[in-house]
């Protein structure tokens, strides 16, 4: 609920040029997390250049943050903005699926 409220507030501020808020949850520097981060950075640079913000949350350091976004699997990428919230779990190795999941590419 709170998330949608936030989104509603932010939307008129940022107008039509969509700003992408992404958050990647990892647990320490595991190989899966690292590859997920690498993959994500690559996609963002490619498709969302200059209109995204990425936050990496290490749950080992902040375990209390896991419940807020209902994090279960690691790594999890959460698209906070634009709404609706989407979650992509895994090392993001499948580019097709990531793009569909982020709604960057319509389903064929």
């Amino acid at each position, binding site marked *: 609920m709170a998330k949608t409220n936030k989104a509603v507030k932010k939307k008129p501020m940022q107008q039509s040029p969509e700003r992408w808020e992404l958050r990647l*949850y990892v*647990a320490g520097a*595991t190989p*899966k997390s690292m590859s*997920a981060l690498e993959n994500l950075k690559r996609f963002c640079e490619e498709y969302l250049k200059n209109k995204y913000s990425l936050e990496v949350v290490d*749950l*080992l350091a902040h*375990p*209390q943050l*896991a*419940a807020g976004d*209902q*994090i*279960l*699997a*690691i*790594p*999890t990428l959460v698209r906070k903005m634009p709404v*609706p*919230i*989407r*979650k*992509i*779990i*895994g*090392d*993001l*190795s*499948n580019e097709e*699926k*990531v793009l*569909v*999941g982020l709604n960057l590419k319509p389903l064929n």
Partner: protein
Amino acid sequence: MASKKTPPSNKTVAKVPTGITGLDEITEGGLPAGRPTLICGTAGVGKTLFGLEFVLKGAKLYNEPGVIVTFEEKPEDLAMNVASLGYDLKKLQDKGIISVDHVHVERSEIEETGEYDLEGLFIRLGYAIDSTGAKRVLLDTIENLFSGLSNQGILRAELRRLFNWLKEKKVTAVITAEKGDGTLTRQGLEEYVSDCVILLDHRVTNQVSTRRLRIVKYRGSIHGTNEYPFLIDEEGISVLPVTSLQLNNDVSSQRVSSGMPELDSMLGGKGFFRGSTILVSGTAGTGKTSIAATFADASCKRREKCLYFAFEESPQQIIRNMRSIGLDLQKHMDEGLLRFHSSRPTLYGLESHLVSIHKKIAAFKPKAIVLDPITNLIIAGQISDVKSILLRLIDFVQSEKITTMFTALNLNTSPNEQTDEGVSSLVDAWLTIRDIESNGERNHGLYVMKSRGMKHSNQVREFVITDGGLKLVDVYVGAEGILTGSSREAQQLAEATGLELRTYALGRKDREIDRKRKVLEATISSLREEFESVQDELNKTYLEEDLRKQITEKNRAELSLKRSNKTVNGKNK
């Protein structure tokens, strides 16, 4: 059940008490400490409640913090559910004793790409456990993960890791899972959780539903293997207490009155043993309830609490009816000595009846209880079940030293005098009331069929219900057989008349003798008079004779004197 306790060795599995009534007895101490326990069963059988009670009772009774991870219900719903059991979840959370985490997996929101693990869940759980210092963890239907995530291979590997991790964390975890088709759980969780598996079951037999619990396995521990009925009520779960099959209850040689002095006198003059079980059987309308009420009344008059379970009548009905035979039960109720518990036998299953009887007894702590009648319990179950339930009940009341009276209805059609419930062999004393039909009347004869450990009368006594209470009257055995009712009264009357007549006859004879004696005495006195007069006569004759003799003597002397003088003269001449 092999309930011989093995001496505790250092190899024994450490156990954590659940606090759930009865369960700790079956498991001989509780769930395995520091290990996960799987609770499985069909929908609506009470799995979640079971887990919640384990955690919440741990916090309440044993001061052990806990973590509740729910995959289904929202924390607000959960709080509402446990509020009805008397737990304030919010307060416990604020105090930091209980941590509730709602893990929600929405499949439509999630896209899976590539490799992942459930470290997030571990971190959340670990955080909750560490922040509360939890000893108990509930994972309520972790299987929900299977519907949220599609990669089964990862999921299974992660679950295995999770259960091992929980063991390493040294928390006692309860995991609930839905029963699958032919398997204990849908996703085969029992493969991962193998230390203790408890199966809950909900069955409906003859329209009466009963929940049952069975410990499928419990590694490294002795446990009861039977199916144990359990009950969910306003106090949560109670598992039916296990019967102690070792017959070693303490017995009392104290005696308590039945409320009828005549009946007490039939029972060796003192009544029943305290803590014994008494069965009162008889056909319909023979006064079984009256005997039971009299017994309850006697108990209350001794200032001993009595609990009356009525399965046929409402308390008001019983009180009204008993007033007609001079028993004021209302007074005892007002004083708090007597309590009624009326319920329809079909209200719930037999086991639930037993559990509720247990609870009522534990709450009221009576010295005597009455179950009136046990016959009706058959409606709620099979005959064999009724017998086993009554066996357990008798066992329980004897261990509590409660004097118990059962009433049972005998059917006229039953060929032998066994009660339908077959409990006559279990009870200590058995009174039976039988119809004696004669001269167009039905009267009741009371027998003491058995009374263990005391001298008891072998006589049939007529059982009469009067305005002043119950009375036992001697049965008249006459030429025409046993006389009861009005023929007994007629016989009594006839005997009274006979007595009167006899006394009258005796009186007359007495008077006759009196008279005879008087006549005799009169005759005797007249004879004596006669004798005296004869004696007088005789005496008189004697006297005259004497007198005459004297006079004759005198005359002769004088005469002889005169003659001698004459002679002298003659000589002299």
